[in-house]
């Protein structure tokens, strides 16, 4: 079960993002929270701390010119 998105938690996240939402928009966000949590679970694999992300920074020919 994903953690519940409580009203205070949602308020904190929205405030951090600088977003001002109506009550209806907040309810809408809460309604999709489980779907988003399922996606977050899917990208978490047993991989260990050494697993690198994709697209790590590389020097371009222009950097080396």
């Amino acid at each position, binding site marked *: 079960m994903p953690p519940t998105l409580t009203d205070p938690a949602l308020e904190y996240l929205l405030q951090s993002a600088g977003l001002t939402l109506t009550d209806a*928009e907040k309810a809408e*966000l809460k*309604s*999709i929270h489980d779907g*988003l949590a399922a*996606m977050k679970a899917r990208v*978490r694999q047993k991989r260990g701390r050494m697993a690198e992300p994709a697209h790590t920074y590389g020097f371009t020919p222009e950097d080396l010119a």
Partner: protein
Amino acid sequence: MSIPTIAEAAALIAAKKLSPVELTKSCLDRLHATEATLHAFVLPTEDRALADAKAAEAAIMKDGPRGPMHGIPIGLKDIVDTAGIETTCGSKILAGNIPERDAACAAKLASAGTVLMGKLTTHEFADGGPSFDLPKPPAHNPWNPEHFTAGSSSGTGAAVAAGVILCGIGTDTGGSIRGPAALCGISGLKPTYGLVSRAGVAPAAFSLDHIGPMAWTAEDCAIMLQVLAGHDPADPASASQPVPDYRAALTGNLKGVRVGVIRHFHEEDYKVEPAVQAGIDNALAVFGSLGATISDVAVSPMQDWHACGTLISITERAAAYEEWSRTRLGDFSERVQHRLHLGALVSGVDYVQAVRRRRELRCELQAAMRELDVVITAGAPGEAQRLDAIPKLDLFDKPNFTMPFNVTGYPALCVCSGFGPAGLPVSVQIVGKPFQDAMVLRVGDAFEKASSWRSRRPALVA
């Protein structure tokens, strides 16, 4: 005049049997006849088109054509900057925005001598879906105007299918070239990430964004890609790779080509409509008859690819548009507001875990394709839905068939593979290895030339 492909028109123009002005006027006639129904253009540029066509005609009469795009009517998605021409990204926020410079792709097409017919309808900032609370209505599907074109390159899909332009620029962050190509029955290529410069094109999600050609045929996409491809220091993700002759790769046969089928994507992870399945089965039979070998291949479930791409997309978009989210949120359409709200719910750690997952998935596809040249799956799950049936909150219901190849950055092409019971197109998606765009186009072109689907146009313009 019937609607020519770029290849046909270029041959006629080179032989001085077709005038660019005559070709442009026939496209303008179709624009006048269809635009009130299709809403494919945010801003038609009729005067510019006629001026470009006259200039092309004069230059061709004097020195011959610069190349096969010289004198060809095109359109640009309205997130592509155009010097001196309003570029709104389909949004109230950029009303009156007139860029000083062309985007790199617009400049390359202009240098090739193309005729600019106008700026094409897009979902707002290439996001969200069909909205009715924007300055312009969404594009409608020429095969049945009550139905959706898919997006976000919705105007490009509609205008190419209706023959108002012979090709156009699309952009693709999760399928925005291939979705409209699939639902409008045209060809659309998302090139390898980094092959076509994104400089001067509004971002949707930086690491997933691609610019690419949309045209009636894969051959026309090859002709257009030849103009667009190449390194550009102005795009930090631009690759420094040699550009091959894409059209020369179109041999018409598939001898020795190794095709893998990611069958579980369209048969298990998200079971497609019977017409789509029939189109894929038919395509495989055609590939086999042209000399290809076929085998099945398996990767992680499509839901994993979708989750990875969606979390990255939500976060990068929220970062790109953070300032306006904070100051002008109410000026976005309801759909885009909702997408921007989602950014508040994805943490930095969630994002990095998604990018780590991305590397794993890319390695997985790389390994799966080690003994293959291309893999195929569906381009879309079925025929186009009705425009009034597109849900606002659709990100979490079902995965999409195109996002996996934004996650990997591999080239992917959608071509028409038939028609469904409602008379609307269905498609197959052909995916290649990085910078093997020519192979993808070769397979798509061979299939189109061996099947009859390119002979049918929407009744609106047939």
